[in-house]
């Protein structure tokens, strides 16, 4: 938790500078407003998601270096994708979640610890820590609509974004409980599934959240994302750990990678199906790069209907969809490469990586209170007054 705070604070400051340089500087100075903070917070979210892949296996120095390297890579990717590829990604599913996931996987691939493959004695939870972790999940659940809707256009788009996110989250919550009971030998619900998988719906609706996908589609996306995430936790993560040397500690590939991919596919479908009949002239506001080019007579007609409409690139739906695909592949490529290079930097001996025995242990870095060493209570032992 404290490392999270440290990394977050560092990332936000660094991101304001880096993103400011790429996106917000005029006349040699970076202009600051609340929008910078929002973008910086997104960059911070990227770093924290990647942190999840290496949770417990790094020292704070390594985390700071990871943030130092990840934020510029993210900023450059974001700038390049937004400026040159010009895609529609309001909830950040492509730019944030996919990037963070594959960067984290890249780092953890390089930082592979063969002895951790059989699990670690200290890498388990307690009853109280699980309940505390659930608070975090519920905070994320409650405020996810704000996350998805912060960069959308005001008015109908933001309204749709909030409602779609809420619906997606609701669907994935129900499905998470159902699948958790279904995939368990005794039919019991696993609390870590609830902590992680209920949020899958929010990521899955991310790329298409402000488009006119109907509420039913938001539901379907929520269910699909949740199913993919749950099956990933149960089958894909162990497979990756054993065969591909990728030890994904928090399972970020399931929650952010798989759901991000589904979200991109959904976004592409929504873009292909968007037409003027459904959206009216506001089609050219949401998909601003589909607006007619400067000098096109159609632009004038639209500007009468929507004053202030900016000229775009005159792309067709197919072209926009192709650009989205290009963005997905380039994001995954750049982030993986960046992750692997960062992993090599993190292996420097100066950065004090914890040894295998001391993974998942606060005692290496913090002063701990006297009751720290009390033995962990195992499950299924009935120790109430019997």
């Amino acid at each position: 938790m404290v490392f999270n705070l440290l990394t977050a604070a560092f990332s936000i400051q660094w991101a304001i500078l880096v993103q400011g340089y790429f996106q917000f500087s005029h006349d040699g100075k970076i202009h600051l407003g609340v929008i910078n903070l929002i973008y910086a917070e997104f960059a911070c979210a990227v770093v924290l998601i990647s942190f999840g892949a290496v949770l417990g296996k790094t020292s704070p120095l390594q985390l700071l270096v990871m943030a130092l390297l990840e934020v510029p890579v993210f900023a450059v990717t974001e700038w390049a994708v937004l400026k040159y590829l010009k895609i529609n990604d309001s909830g950040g599913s492509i730019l944030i979640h996919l990037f963070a996931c594959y960067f984290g996987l890249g780092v953890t691939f390089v930082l592979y610890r063969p002895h951790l493959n059989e699990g670690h004695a200290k890498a388990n939870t307690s009853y109280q820590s699980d309940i505390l972790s659930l608070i975090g999940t519920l905070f994320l659940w409650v405020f996810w609509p704000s996350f998805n809707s912060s960069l959308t256009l005001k008015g109908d788009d933001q309204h749709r974004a909030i409602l779609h996110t809420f619906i997606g989250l609701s669907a994935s919550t129900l499905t998470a409980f159902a699948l958790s009971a279904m995939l368990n030998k005794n039919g019991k619900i696993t609390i870590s599934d609830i902590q992680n998988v209920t949020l899958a719906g929010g990521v899955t609706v991310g790329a298409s959240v402000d488009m006119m996908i109907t509420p039913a589609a938001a539901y379907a996306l929520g269910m699909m994302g949740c199913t993919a995430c749950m099956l990933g936790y149960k089958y894909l993560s162990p497979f990756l750990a054993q065969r591909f040397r990728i030890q994904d500690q928090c399972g970020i590939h399931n929650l952010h990678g798989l759901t991000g991919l589904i979200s991109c596919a959904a976004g592409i479908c929504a873009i292909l199906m968007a037409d003027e009949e459904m959206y009216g002239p506001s089609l050219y506001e949401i998909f601003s790069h589909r607006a007619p080019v400067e000098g096109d007579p159609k632009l004038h007609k639209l500007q009468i209907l929507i004053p202030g409409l900016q000229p775009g690139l005159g792309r067709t739906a197919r072209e926009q969809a192709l650009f989205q695909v290009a963005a997905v592949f380039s994001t995954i490529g750049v982030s993986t490469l960046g992750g692997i290079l960062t992993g090599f930097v993190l292996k420097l001996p100066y950065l004090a990586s914890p040894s295998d025995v001391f993974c998942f242990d606060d005692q290496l870095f913090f002063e701990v209170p006297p009751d720290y060493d009390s033995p962990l209570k195992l499950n299924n032992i009935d120790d109430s007054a019997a």
Partner: protein
Amino acid sequence: MAPQYAPSLRSRLAPMLLVLQLGFILIYAFYIEIESNVKVYGITFSNLYPEFQDVNVMVILGFGYMCTFLVRYGFSGSGFNLLVAVIAIQWAIILNGIENWYYRGKIRIDLKSLVVAEMCAASALISIGVVLGKTNPVHLILIALLEVSGFVLNEWLLQTLLKVPPLNSIMLLHIFTAFFGLMLTRILYRKGSEQPFEKEKVDRKTGLFSILGTLFLCVFWPSFNSVLVDNRTPGRRLGAVLSTYLALAVSAVTAAAVSSLSSPEGKLNPIHLQSCMLAGGVSIGVSMPAVHQPWEALPIGFTAAVVSTIGFRYLKSHMLLAFKCHDTCAVLSTHGLPGLLGWLAHLLLQIKDCDDHNSQKAYHLLAQYTRRQKFPHLAVQK
């Protein structure tokens, strides 16, 4: 006692949830669409988003963590709270829109319908608090569906037959849910309730989590009470926020006092403080449309806390023995009685403020009659 294995949820919970979710998808696909042409700074959307998030936090974090007070029921308390809330919200959106569907063929939803649905979900969550620890999640889903249906039906009856304004009918959720839950627990009475349950205990750590939930509820209660207040009369929403805040403050202080008074060693019981602090919010919520001055909010909070704390202390065992209702979260004293008190306060305040000529005449006649009885020599000559 040897552990007894509960029937597996795999064949019961999972199919039920999946079928329910698919059913919702089908209904939403055919009948629900999102309201378009939302005014950017109008009444429907931007004004409402911060309050919507506050209500959202209350429903998901506040109620969820308040139900983790039981020592071995933490996961279920907060986890099932999320599950029931989500089901209830989806179902409530559909039910609240049925009237629209009947006349127009489609239900249009916007942020306000989400807020109203969250309040209906809050009523479902309070009901499951009454049976907390004694049911399994399949029961809880059914309770959510039926309770929300009953509540929306009740609202419709009040609005259509008795012409009650929508705000008032929603705020009566506290009374509805308390008695719904009590009857539920009466029917689900178990023989084993006669002895105190071995696991129905509060621990130091879980008590703290529970207080965390209560604090979330307290902090955001003014939004809960004021989000549906009509802001066309200037200052009405501010009035609602202020009255709620004051009532909560007064009830917290009073609850501490009464809790200390009613304990044999004069100690404070933290559970009293938690639950009875909320009693002020409950009763001011029910009486809010009639509260126009700040001074009216304070005695409402005061009385609510007194009634609630005394009720908490004595009613729980009484309800169990006399009425066979084992109320886990003491919802009767937290929501039922303060709700009724709020209703009474509403009635009295409305009579006081009434401009109706007939009742003024009646009031004067009453005054004259009493004067004549007490002071015959001062009787006004008619």
